[in-house]
């Protein structure tokens, strides 16, 4: 073998080795590159090693960033999930991309199943359909939900990014009801005051314009007095109500002698009934009540006079007081006309009338039960009503044991 041949042979061998090494490293890289996310890049010496190290560092940084972004997404999803609003993310054609738990509750949307469906397929209330077609989203739209009974929702579409929208929804039932009550209250007060006032001014004009003899004048003024009384009663009730509402401090714990108070209430009921009903009083237990006498008296009186007013002739009204170690219960039960269950939740609203024509002729102001509710609340008690239409009603309340005082000796029978 000549030296030249030897050199050539060595060179060939070296080249062969180099080629073989490159091919081997290249295969490693290729294998790794097929699934770069799962494994680290291969390791090697020399220049291949440097390249692999760079890849390694790059992969680490990418993974780190990816984890951070994933956490950010999770965090913002959780944030959207925790919002008290319904949030639905829609695409440019108002198709669902994602929604949170509240949106699910409001519209029955399922973020997985309903993805890609038009939002109008599930939010079908006509008001919303109109809102969507009109395309003016500057104001929210309010609608009665058909999915949730008697709930009012406020919906608004907010556009963001390129051709993307958010549908925000909020349960505004409470606010809507308050608004309605306030509107009703103002119109009711005006109406209740205007009716007697119209009568009064009518008579006044007559007396002023016509020359009437003294007896006629007396007749007319006689008719005017009850109207004036009614207005006075109404204003007194309004003042009572507002003083109850604006005095949230717990009432001083004065002793209220229960037996004499209940006896007085019974006599008033008998007087109002003019012996057309049987009014029965039963008192059990030897406790007095701690509270404000005027307020408790008006609770008892209101409930008892209501019972008399709404019970037909020959009916019965039972007034019961029972006190013991566990507290006291006051109840008024009648055999009257009863109340439809649909009215029960609204009974204590001011001027709420079950039957408009009836209650005014019986002389109520429409404020009695509101006063009862507020006065009881100040004594930590709640009004309960059970009623069967046509059979009768039972109004009751419980006072806690902490409000009871043992009756003084001489009062015990």
């Amino acid at each position, binding site marked *: 073998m000549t030296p030249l041949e030897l050199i050539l042979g060595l060179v060939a061998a070296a080249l062969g080795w180099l080629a073989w090494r490159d091919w081997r490293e290249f295969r490693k890289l290729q294998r790794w590159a097929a699934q770069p996310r799962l494994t680290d890049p291969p390791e090697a010496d020399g220049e291949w090693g440097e390249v692999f190290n760079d890849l390694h560092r790059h992969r680490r940084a990418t993974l780190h960033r990816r984890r951070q972004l994933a956490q950010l997404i999770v965090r913002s999803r959780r944030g959207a999930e925790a919002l008290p609003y319904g949030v639905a993310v829609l695409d440019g054609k108002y198709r669902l991309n994602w929604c949170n738990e509240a949106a699910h509750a409001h519209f029955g949307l399922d973020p997985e199943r309903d993805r890609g469906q038009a939002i109008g*397929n599930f939010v079908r209330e006509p008001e919303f359909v109109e809102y969507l077609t009109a395309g003016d989203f500057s104001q929210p739209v309010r609608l009665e939900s*058909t999915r949730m009974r008697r709930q009012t929702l406020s919906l608004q579409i907010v556009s963001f990014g390129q051709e993307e929208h958010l549908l925000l929804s909020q349960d505004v039932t409470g606010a809507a009801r308050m608004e309605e009550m306030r509107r009703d209250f103002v119109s009711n007060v005006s109406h209740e005051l205007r009716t007697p006032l119209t009568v009064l001014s009518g008579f006044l004009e007559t007396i002023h314009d016509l020359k009437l003899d003294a007896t006629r004048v007396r007749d007319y003024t006689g008719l005017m007095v009850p109207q004036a009384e009614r207005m006075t009663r109404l204003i007194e009730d309004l003042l009572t109500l507002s003083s109850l509402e604006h005095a949230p401090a717990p009432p001083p714990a004065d002793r209220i002698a229960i037996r004499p108070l209940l006896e007085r209430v019974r006599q008033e009921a008998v007087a109002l009934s003019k012996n057309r009903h049987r009014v029965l009083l039963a008192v059990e237990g030897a406790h007095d009540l701690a509270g404000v006498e005027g307020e408790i008296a008006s609770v008892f009186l209101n409930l008892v006079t209501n019972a008399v007013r709404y019970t037909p002739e020959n009916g019965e009204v039972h007034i019961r007081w029972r006190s013991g170690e566990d507290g006291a219960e006051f109840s008024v039960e009648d055999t009257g006309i009863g109340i439809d269950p649909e009215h029960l939740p609204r009974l204590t609203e001011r001027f709420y009338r079950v039957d408009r024509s009836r209650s005014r002729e019986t002389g109520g102001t429409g404020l009695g039960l509101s006063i009862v509710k507020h006065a009881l609340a100040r004594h930590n008690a709640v009004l309960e009503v059970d009623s069967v239409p046509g059979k009768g009603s039972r109004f009751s309340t419980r006072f806690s044991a902490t409000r009871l005082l043992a009756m003084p000796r001489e009062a015990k029978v």
Partner: protein
Amino acid sequence: MGATEHISTAFEADLDTTRTRVLQMGGLVEAQILAAINAYVTGDAELIRQVIENDARVNGYEVAIDGACNQIVVRRQPAASDLRLIMAISKIVTDLERMGDEAKKIAKMAKQLHDQSTPTAQRFPAIRHAAETAVKMLRQALDAFARLDVAVAAEVLKEDSEIDAEFKSVLRELITYMMEDPRTITPALGTVWVAKAVERIGDHAKNVAEQVIYIVRGTDVRHTSFEDIERELSKE
């Protein structure tokens, strides 16, 4: 289902738009029924007027959707499940329109009952309850249609018997009233009409649910007992 397979084609877009319009019509009918029942309970004249007036919109939807269905059949000549969808939509729309008519009927009856100043005892809480069940059935049937969900559709079929039972109990109660006091006969008859309308609404909701099963399974489950349907559906 079809909607996710080839979203981009104009044909799919046509189908999707029509589907959404059916559901919107359904939403209007839901609202009409609820309003009609409220009008029956409260006698609110404005509400009564609105329900009667809005029925024209329900009818408008029916005509428009039917027209769209015809267009699709003529221009696209759909086959298999797409054809079933179109056929079913055409029937569902008819049922929805009838439900709208029933709502209008209830509103008209509410007007009559309140004009006669019927005593409050004649407004039955049971009817409101049955009506709420009927609206719930319709809502479920529409949701089932949107999702092509056979399980929910089958549930609707079952609920219909609840309304039928409630209708019968209202009838019995009314009979006792009429026997007690002949003056209640006129308003009681009016109430029967309202109850019957509610019962019909339940029937139509059931039809819609049956169409959903037809779209998905291709089986006609009309006039089949619920047990047989359940057996049929559990096969797959």
